């Protein structure tokens, strides 16, 4: 029984950690390229969740397709908000303005969603939510299986994009030195836009993956974003590999804290780890020179 529980909680932790990774990856990408924290990231997650929900319930689409819809909606909104708000502010030359604007965008999006969707929690059920695979005392819902598969695919594709494509290499160049990359013929503004689009698309997709797991309200994303920030810090700001590792560690910490300590202690344990990391290894779990982030 004990082994079964340990294994079950490991699976629970990996599933939860995968969700955190999907949300945290966008945050770390934006930080890596722009050295900017995006406080509105949580709301892109929420919007992705609602996009998937309404695609299923109003259009009658399937869940898997709804994940793609959330991805596209997130990307489109990321492009729009970057073009309409962040880019003009960035051109004013004050780094603080876009940062403050992300807070404004966050509050605005939350209240627009509150007006549109109302405060009553939505039940986001998919055909996979209640279908459970059981073997040797272990249970895994098909929803969890989908979360793990999509997370692995996303991480692999993102990694391949960054390492092997021209645009990915250009992004890394901008992350290393925006001005020099510009002198080499790379358009930093285009790549900053691309970063926002990718990060927002990931957030939207993360929302569609999270929606059946979390409580879907206009404030849904905010309940995971604090953990996502912690994961980005533990993994190392702007460090994709570190973020993935930290996300999985936090997921496992939550599961085992729940089993062997108390779920009320989860935040204490996670944020104690964050403080320890800041004190002894502020560069994050996987050390990397700042210039080589992303």
């Amino acid at each position, binding site marked *: 029984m004990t082994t079964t529980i340990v294994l079950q909680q490991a699976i629970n932790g990996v599933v939860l950690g995968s969700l955190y990774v999907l949300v945290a990856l966008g945050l770390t990408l934006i930080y890596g390229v722009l050295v900017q924290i995006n406080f509105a990231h949580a709301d892109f997650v929420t919007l992705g969740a609602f996009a998937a929900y309404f695609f299923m319930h109003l259009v009658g689409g399937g869940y898997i397709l709804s994940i793609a819809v959330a991805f596209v909606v997130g990307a489109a909104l990321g492009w729009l908000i970057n073009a309409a708000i962040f880019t003009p502010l960035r051109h004013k030359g004050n780094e603080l303005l876009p940062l403050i604007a992300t807070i404004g965008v966050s509050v605005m999006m939350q209240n627009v969603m509150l007006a549109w969707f109302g405060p009553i929690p939505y*039940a986001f059920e998919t055909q996979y939510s*209640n279908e459970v695979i059981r073997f040797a005392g272990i249970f895994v*819902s098909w929803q969890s299986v989908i979360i793990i598969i999509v997370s692995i695919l996303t991480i692999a594709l993102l990694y391949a994009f960054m390492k092997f494509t021209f645009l990915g290499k250009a992004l890394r160049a901008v992350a290393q030195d925006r001005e020099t990359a510009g002198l080499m013929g790379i358009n930093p503004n285009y790549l900053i836009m691309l970063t926002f689009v990718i990060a927002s698309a990931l957030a939207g997709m993360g929302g569609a993956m999270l929606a059946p797991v979390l409580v879907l309200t206009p404030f849904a994303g905010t309940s995971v974003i604090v953990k996502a920030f912690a994961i980005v810090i533990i993994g190392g700001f702007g460090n994709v590999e570190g973020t993935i590792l930290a996300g999985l560690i936090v997921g496992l910490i939550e599961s085992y804290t729940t089993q062997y300590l108390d*779920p009320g202690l989860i935040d204490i344990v996670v944020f104690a780890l964050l403080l320890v990391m800041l004190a002894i290894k502020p560069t994050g779990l996987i050390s990397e020179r700042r210039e080589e982030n992303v």
Partner: protein
Amino acid sequence: MKALRTLFVSAAAVGLLVTAAQAQDKTIKIGALFPMSGPGSYFGAQDKQGVELALEQLNKAGVNGYKFVVQYEDSSCSPLPATQAAKRLIEQFKPDVIIGEECSDATLAVMPVVEQAKVPLLNAGSSSIKVTEPGNPWTFRIMPNEVMQGINLAENASKRMKAETAVLLFENTNAGIGNAQVFKENFTKAGGKVLAEIGFGRDVNDFTAIATRVAGLGKVDVIPTYTLEGQGLKITQALAQAGVTKGGGGNAIQIGTIWLPFGFEAKAGKAALGYIRIVQFDPTDTRDVAKNFASAFKAKYNADPTHLNAHAYDQVMLIADVVKRGGKDAQSIRDGLAATKGYSGVTGSVEFDKTNQNTKMDTIHYMETKPDMSWTSLKWN
């Protein structure tokens, strides 16, 4: 002389008209502290519906020449915003009476503010015993408190459901912890055994780990659960996935006090099978007041009312009853509330004890989720 008499009669008539008009201009100002944002915002949305229905009915003719106006403030189900909202209401709107909040932590934070301002607070949604113990002259509660509900729930779990073991799941708030402790005391007193007490924050989303822990505890008969609707949905689904509860093929039954609105079972799906919980309003109640409320609500909103709609409606209607008995300002409304006897509202009867707690047990209604995800009234009280 005749002209003078005509002048006097005309003046008297004008005077009467002015007085009548002034009487119609008299208003009772009700401040409403409801959560409109955050995880408890579904409370506020449904409370507002109940209040608006009551206002529509009352303001058609008024009560004793008084009309009722309501000012809503977002108290966010949380102590700090609730305190700020209460201060805003008192300073700017100057209410004769305040209704709300829903969450115990928020209500407890507001109580000293209304006491200092000497404005009565009529509460219908906070269950913590601290709201009325040891008693606050300005705070009244029509909802059965956590002790009334907890004792009743524990007795029914032991005697009617023949439960021997329980696992307590609760949010780490005054109401969550208080409800769980009352159940524990009374369930163990009745010979039952509590296998685990699992508290969690409101930021927990995934309850699979908690369900796994419960599954590892052996035979569990009942799982008293104390959370807001959103987390409640996820807990119910996780427990079913883990094969713990009836909805997932297990034997355990989730039970609970007044936390969840109607419609919960439809959202939770088959995972909610067998869930037994106390609700504040029984739509199968055959009293005229309950039937009339349900039909008026349906006519206005084209939906069936929830207990939140019902208790918000009751709050305003009870204030109207006090105004009918002579209440006209904060002090007289407070005194009128304290003197309430045999008032029959939609959620049940109202009669306050010396701590201003409603003592009537007919406010406790049980319901059980059936296999088709509808529910049935158990008539245990």
